[in-house]
């Protein structure tokens, strides 16, 4: 009477999946999302509620530690899979389900993890080569629980806060930041014990919660000194552009400052998947206008789906993604045009969505043109409401031209995010404009603003966008 195994198999029929898209793997992400929607599997927003960590795309060096962090946050039964090509999505999901339903494997993995945590850090086991579709990672003993990161912060004197010399501050911050992202995971237990003792000295009996220091204070708009929290809107986030990292400084829930980074280190081919028809036309292949317009409409639908999911309208977001998959699968124009029209009418008619987004992220046409923004963001010339309505209008226009069989003119390169024949890719200007728009917005507003611009990090490779910080 294998009750636990039976329960496990029952739970494994529809596990929650956290999809982590890598930069350069848009096609795989779209395939996986479509497959999940067809199967009716729920998606997770954070690792703690995920049963499957699904990485779409190849290895990106900048992401390795982030993925480990996400794995450590998952509660057994859990499993990690990777798919490098769109065709591998279905088999990867099946493999994940088989792995999850296997009681012995899950039990030994959970036990190994608990032992590793208790018995001090050990070397990370042999890295699985990340074979396509093969589940891996659960039986690696992971060293160092999360407390380890906080030990570095224990060097901070107690939270008097404001009396530190600036040099010491900068040193500590640099120390903590470096430690947070780049240090290895295996550390000898003796060192950890030593830090503990040291940390307890300066506390005066008041331990730091979770080993992390409290937020430092800084000036706010009225000259008051309030706590400033450094919060990353990180690469692993639901409905977030793949590879984009926003380091926010937040006071309460208001963003004071935003620094944009991209997680790079990826050596694949540059260029976004959404703009492939134009690149093909430029390199001389015969491409029809209908193909290009179809790809562009699908890109707008993808952005719209993400935006609606961030705005909380899950139903419309699912419809948008369903329409995106229809467009990419080649559904004939009459059918898809009707559906898109109905969807655009429904979303455009919603007063709630309009009120939610009114006044956020105002980017008027002059500022946009000055920063080099092209495409729908420039044409909309306003706040988040104007931008999503511009997307709706453009999708309707595009869908009317799906049957156009004339050859694509390489000089008319209007991609989904802007003109492709400029000096820089259109997303570079969008990313540059972000810090200015985000300063002073609330956290929810910040996410809506990013979703309404939806920069594509793939377009920025191989031009690194390092200078786009705030």
């Amino acid at each position: 009477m294998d009750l636990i195994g039976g329960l496990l198999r029952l739970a494994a029929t529809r596990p929650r999946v956290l999809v982590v898209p890598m930069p350069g793997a848009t096609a795989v992400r779209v395939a996986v999302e479509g497959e999940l929607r067809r199967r009716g599997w729920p998606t997770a927003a954070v690792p703690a509620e995920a049963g499957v960590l699904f990485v779409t795309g190849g290895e990106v060096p900048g992401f390795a530690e982030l993925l480990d962090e996400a794995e450590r946050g998952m509660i057994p039964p859990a499993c990690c899979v990777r798919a490098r090509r769109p065709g591998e999505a279905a088999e990867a999901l099946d493999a994940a389900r088989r792995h999850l339903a296997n009681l012995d494997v899950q039990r030994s993995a959970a036990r190994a993890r608990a032992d590793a945590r208790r018995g001090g850090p050990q070397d990370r086991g042999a890295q699985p080569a990340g074979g396509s579709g093969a589940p891996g990672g659960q039986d690696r003993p992971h060293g160092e629980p999360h407390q380890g990161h906080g030990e570095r912060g224990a060097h901070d004197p107690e939270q008097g806060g404001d009396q530190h010399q600036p040099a010491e501050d900068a040193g500590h911050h640099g120390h903590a930041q470096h430690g947070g992202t780049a240090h290895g995971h295996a550390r000898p237990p003796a060192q950890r014990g030593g830090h503990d003792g040291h940390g307890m000295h300066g506390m005066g009996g008041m331990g730091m919660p979770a080993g992390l220091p409290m937020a430092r204070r800084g000036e706010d708009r009225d000259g008051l000194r309030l706590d400033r929290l450094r919060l990353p809107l990180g690469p692993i986030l639901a409905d977030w552009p793949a590879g984009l990292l926003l380091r926010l400084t937040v006071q309460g829930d208001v963003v004071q400052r935003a620094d944009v980074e991209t997680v790079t280190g990826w050596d694949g081919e540059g260029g976004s998947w959404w703009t492939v028809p134009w690149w093909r036309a430029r390199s001389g292949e015969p491409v029809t206008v209908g193909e290009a317009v179809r790809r562009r409409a699908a890109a707008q639908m993808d952005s719209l789906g993400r935006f609606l999911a961030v705005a909380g309208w899950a139903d419309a977001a699912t419809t948008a993604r369903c329409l995106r998959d229809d467009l990419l699968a080649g559904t004939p124009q009459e059918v898809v045009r009707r559906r898109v029209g109905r969807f655009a009418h429904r979303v455009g008619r919603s007063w709630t969505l309009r009120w939610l987004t009114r006044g956020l992220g105002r980017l008027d046409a002059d500022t946009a043109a000055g920063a080099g923004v092209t495409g729908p963001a420039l044409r909309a010339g306003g706040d988040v409401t104007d931008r999503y309505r511009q997307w709706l209008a453009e999708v309707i226009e595009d869908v009317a031209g799906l049957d156009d069989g004339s050859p694509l003119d390489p000089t008319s390169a209007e991609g989904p995010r802007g003109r492709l024949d400029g000096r820089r890719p259109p997303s570079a200007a969008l990313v540059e404009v972000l810090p200015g728009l985000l300063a002073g917005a609330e956290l929810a507003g910040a996410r809506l603003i990013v979703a309404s611009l939806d920069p594509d990090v793939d377009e920025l490779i191989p031009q690194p966008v390092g200078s786009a910080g705030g």
Partner: protein
Amino acid sequence: MALVMLVVGGVYGAARLVALAPRALTATSFTGGIAPLEHAVSRFHVRWYPVAMLFLAFDMEMIFMYPWTRVISIMGVSAVVEMFTFLAVLLAGVAYAWREGALRWT
């Protein structure tokens, strides 16, 4: 009461039996895969504090209004005038704060 405790204890016990990991997961908050630098227990934005203080001021004013409603029929118009003068004084304070920008949202 005992039945409720039995049920709750039963649910906990069942969860303990079925769980795969021997103890609960210890993890900090998930911030996109990057280790959190600071604990997120920090103060609210300043805009909530003026709202709280305004509420307190007008709450105390309301407390004065409760007995006032009982005597107003006896005392007549003068009572009404006095209470509204009191209200006007408070509103003058709010107007001053508004003009100074203390009630600005973000």
